[in-house]
């Protein structure tokens, strides 16, 4: 018998696949005794029983320094929920993302919308709108003063803190500083709403609202707003408000000793000295320009 067959014979006897008689006939009775002696001895041996409960606790404690099984699964679940929420929030904010366009002091800015509507922002003014929904929802918030050339389309709405202007397709100027609103219509029709009052302006008409109350309509022969031709025009305007406009146009700081006076007239946007003269002279005031401090004192 070759060694290979002998090995298999032993293995199969050990596993019970070959009987004792087979071993006796193949290897002799002494061999069987030897095998029994060995196997009987070894089969009394035992290993300490392993406590799998405490072993598993130990395993979990070790893992908890990384991540314990349950928390890992929960963590994956939780994080996927959190991720979907973040995605939703991201999508929502993207969808409703608002765009703000500023013109800083001493700067006018023109913005063209996708539908061809043009907005010219006067100094220090800003508009805010939702870019994605613009085509169907032409709403914007205005702070300050802007001139609009609106293409025909869905209703065009300008919200200001002092009132709302609704238009279809037209050219108009909205001025909304402090608590005053002035709307000038240059083409088409404009509907101005202040609180519950409304007024419709036709071409060449303008209206003002002070302290949320609409004033009578006025006729104007202007082709464009004054600021568009480099001027500011006032009628019985508080001198402080006129100086605010000077500050915006020339990016300067004006201190005023007498704020009681009112001003009617215009000033230019390209020459500070000339502008100050046209404001101060009629009122009998004098001014001093400090170029270093970029400030003006009016007395």
């Amino acid at each position, binding site marked *: 018998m070759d060694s290979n067959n002998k090995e298999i014979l032993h*293995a199969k006897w050990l*596993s019970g696949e070959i009987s004792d008689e087979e071993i006796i006939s193949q290897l002799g009775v002494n061999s069987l005794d030897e095998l029994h002696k060995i196997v009987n001895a070894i089969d009394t041996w035992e290993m300490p029983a392993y406590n799998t409960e405490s072993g598993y606790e130990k395993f979990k404690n070790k893992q908890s320094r990384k991540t314990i099984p349950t928390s890992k*699964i929960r963590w994956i679940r939780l994080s996927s929920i959190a991720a979907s929420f973040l995605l939703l929030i991201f999508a929502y904010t993207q969808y409703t993302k608002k765009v703000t366009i500023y013109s800083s002091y001493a700067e006018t800015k023109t913005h063209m919308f996708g539908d061809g509507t043009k907005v010219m922002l006067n100094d220090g003014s800003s508009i805010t709108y939702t870019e994605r929904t613009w085509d169907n929802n032409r709403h914007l918030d205005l702070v300050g003063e802007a001139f609009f050339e609106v293409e025909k389309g869905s209703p065009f709405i300008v919200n200001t803190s002092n009132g709302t202007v609704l238009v279809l397709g037209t050219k108009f100027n909205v001025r909304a500083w402090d608590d005053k609103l002035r709307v000038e219509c240059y083409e088409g029709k404009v509907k101005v709403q202040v609180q519950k009052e409304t007024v419709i302006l036709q071409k060449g008409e303008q209206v003002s609202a002070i302290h949320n109350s609409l004033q009578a309509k006025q006729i104007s022969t202007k082709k464009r707003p004054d600021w568009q031709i480099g001027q500011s025009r006032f009628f019985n305007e508080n001198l402080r408000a006129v100086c605010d406009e000077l500050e915006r146009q020339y990016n300067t700081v004006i201190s005023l000793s007498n704020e009681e006076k009112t001003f009617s007239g215009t000033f230019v946007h390209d020459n500070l000295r000339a502008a100050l003269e046209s404001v101060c002279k009629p009122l009998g005031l004098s001014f001093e320009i400090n170029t270093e401090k970029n400030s003006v004192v009016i007395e």
Partner: protein
Amino acid sequence: MTKSVCQEETFKSIFSEHAEALVNFIFYKSGNYAEAEDLMQDAFSKLWEQCRKVPFEKAKSFLFTVANNAFLNVVKHKKIVLKFEQKGHSQLSQVSPQYLMEEAEFKEKLERAISALPDNQRTIFLMNRIDKMKYREIAEKLGISIKTVEKRMGKTLIELRKISKNL
């Protein structure tokens, strides 16, 4: 739905079923029980990390392979002497002191002979005799054929016979 190793319930059942066999398996190789338990724990950590990649059916052979590799890499190979406890044999209370002495002597000889066997023979032999695993089970766990298991078992038994002859 098939069982996923990543489910804690499933994972725990795998642990309950195979932790002891794994500790013993490494002990048969190293002769160091504490070290064997560490390597068993490490193997389960690996299984947990890879739970997505290891199908439930492959978990046990994964564990034995990882533990074996860790043993080969980590444990410095040195001569070992395995000692085993004996199950109580109260039915033999009447045996003579002479017999007990001979029996103890024989046990020690067998232990030394088994300890001197090549790792892969010794491990398989003890998995069969002490853990009572069938050849098929051993083959599955170690990823080898039943024929290989049989060959190693037979070879071991023949070598142990030579020892008993010298007694």
